[in-house]
């Protein structure tokens, strides 16, 4: 493709509009842009939470996400790809993660974004801890996320 994905792992928030605009800037071959924004909810299960704290593995997180971004660009005809994942303390209503895909074809843009989100949920080295009235506890991985990720495995 020759196209490089933008990958950022950062503590700061991101600006969805700026990231979407950056992918389309100065080109007229993009027909479809899909964005996925993951947001911190105010409850985990039925329990209200005060915040999430995201821990990550610096170095490995970048390498792993880049490997999956490259796989997405090889599998789908993408003209732009941006992945931003925050770490640190994140309050309810705040952004956690952003995936933006640009393509000539809407199906490619949708599928690549879903593939990357399924991957980020199960294999990117990030861990969420929740803060609630009952103290701090680590969120457990969910089986249905593994099932979602497995559907992209080539047979």
């Amino acid at each position, binding site marked *: 493709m020759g196209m490089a994905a933008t990958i950022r792992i950062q503590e700061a928030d991101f600006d969805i509009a700026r990231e979407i605009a950056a992918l389309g800037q100065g080109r007229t071959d993009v027909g479809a842009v899909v964005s996925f924004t*993951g947001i911190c909810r105010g409850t985990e299960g039925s329990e209200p939470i005060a915040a999430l704290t*995201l*821990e*990550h*593995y610096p*170095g*490995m997180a970048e*390498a*792993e996400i880049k490997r999956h971004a490259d796989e997405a660009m090889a599998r789908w005809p993408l003209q732009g790809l941006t992945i931003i*994942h925050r770490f640190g303390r994140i309050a309810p209503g705040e952004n*956690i*993660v952003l995936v933006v895909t640009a393509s000539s074809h809407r199906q490619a843009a949708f599928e690549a974004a879903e593939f990357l*989100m399924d991957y*980020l*949920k*199960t*294999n*990117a*080295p*990030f*861990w*969420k*801890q929740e803060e609630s009235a009952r103290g701090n506890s*680590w*969120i*457990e*991985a969910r089986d249905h*996320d593994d099932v979602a990720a497995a559907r992209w495995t080539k047979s």
Partner: protein
Amino acid sequence: MKVKYFAWVRERIGKAEETVEPPASVRTVDELIAWLSNRGDAYAHAFEKPKVIRAAIDHAHVKPDAAIAGAREIAFFPPMTGG
């Protein structure tokens, strides 16, 4: 060899990283887990369910039977919950 710990593995062991020198008989990731578990109660607690523990060698996910020879950095952590 440098060993790193994340999330509740880190919390239970009480440190984020350390340098260890396992004997030559420790050849694989699961053998390293068994060897670390013998370093004290904190380690035994962190690794009490070895099947739950994920490992990475030099920033790449590996299986428990992966060889550790030549590794610069080995990391242990619970299943990931990003996204």
